[in-house]
């Protein structure tokens, strides 16, 4: 506990379990990151599910560790629970705010693919049509993107594919309606 209190910009709440929970959240996130890097979980075609599964399993280990500390210290009250919830928030956001979007950006972003294709061209410049053709021959063309996004829609259970006929699911309807209401509130239009 003395080590934690000497760390700069580290919380020093009166409840020791709260301090431990927040510190361990960062430690377990680093463990998760190392597991993703060395386990190459983001290299699979469906990179999200194995990465999220790994994140969940390490998250369970984290909860068990914090609970063990709480039992040893004899502090299993509301304050300890609040510390655990805050720690879980820190652990989850370190992944979903800083790692998860990077995987999506690198794997899925059409804009990044366009940038990559232009950047890889020999010579100083490349015409727009050439970029589109190169992306198509690299399996990142318009029809490839469309097929990939349709597959993504089904993997996320937003729609069902019945022999090439797609129908929206209940979850898909909810996601769509909620999204539309939010856009209306902010007076925004889709790209």
């Amino acid at each position, binding site marked *: 506990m003395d080590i934690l209190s000497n760390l700069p910009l580290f919380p020093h709440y009166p409840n020791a379990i709260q301090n431990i929970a927040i510190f361990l959240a960062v430690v377990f996130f680093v463990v998760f990151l190392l597991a993703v890097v060395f386990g190459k979980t983001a290299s699979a075609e469906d990179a999200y599910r194995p990465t999220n599964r790994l994140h969940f399993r390490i998250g369970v280990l984290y909860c068990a560790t914090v609970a063990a500390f709480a039992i040893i210290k004899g502090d299993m009250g509301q304050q300890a629970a609040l510390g655990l919830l805050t720690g879980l928030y820190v652990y989850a956001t370190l992944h979903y705010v800083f790692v998860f979007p990077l995987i999506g950006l690198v794997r899925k972003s059409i804009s990044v693919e366009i940038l990559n294709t232009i950047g890889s061209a020999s010579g100083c410049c490349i015409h727009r049509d050439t970029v589109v053709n190169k992306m198509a021959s690299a399996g990142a063309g318009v029809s490839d993107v469309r097929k990939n996004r349709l597959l993504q829609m089904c993997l996320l259970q937003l729609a069902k594919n019945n022999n090439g006929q*797609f129908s929206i699911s209940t979850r898909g309807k909810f996601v769509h309606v909620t999204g539309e209401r939010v856009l209306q509130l902010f*007076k925004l239009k889709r790209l």
Partner: protein
Amino acid sequence: MNLMSTLLASAFFLSAALIVHVATCRLTSDRHFMAKGLSIGCLATLCSFAFFSWHGQADLVGPYVVLTAWLMYLMAFINLLNSVTLKMLASLYQAPQQTLLEASFKDTFNADAGLSERFDMLLNSGLIAQEPNGLYVTTKGQMILLLVRIVRSALAIPR
């Protein structure tokens, strides 16, 4: 301050930022949406840090909660505005009997309604530039590509 007070104060700063963001979006045009969103979020985070420091608590938990909650909120918007998947979902929702064949999604994402818009977005953001001979990646764009290569290499993501 204890943890509960820290979290309540963070929630207050987030609520204030949200009200300012809604008002800004409704009262101004939809241009520079990300710049406005990031500016409001940074301001809220800095204000929360100043507030906690003033209370003798210069730790990162409160500002971290404000910053990450705001970033998640903006990320949800990026997906909502740009996601091809959600645009396809919208087409499916509006279709007769909410059912479509794969070929019918061509209207949702094709070379015009998809790639062209992204080319224009990259030009407007200064990540690529147009010459008489064609397009090239600017220095700003090169930095993005370098970041992408580093992440791809670190996470073993194939091209």
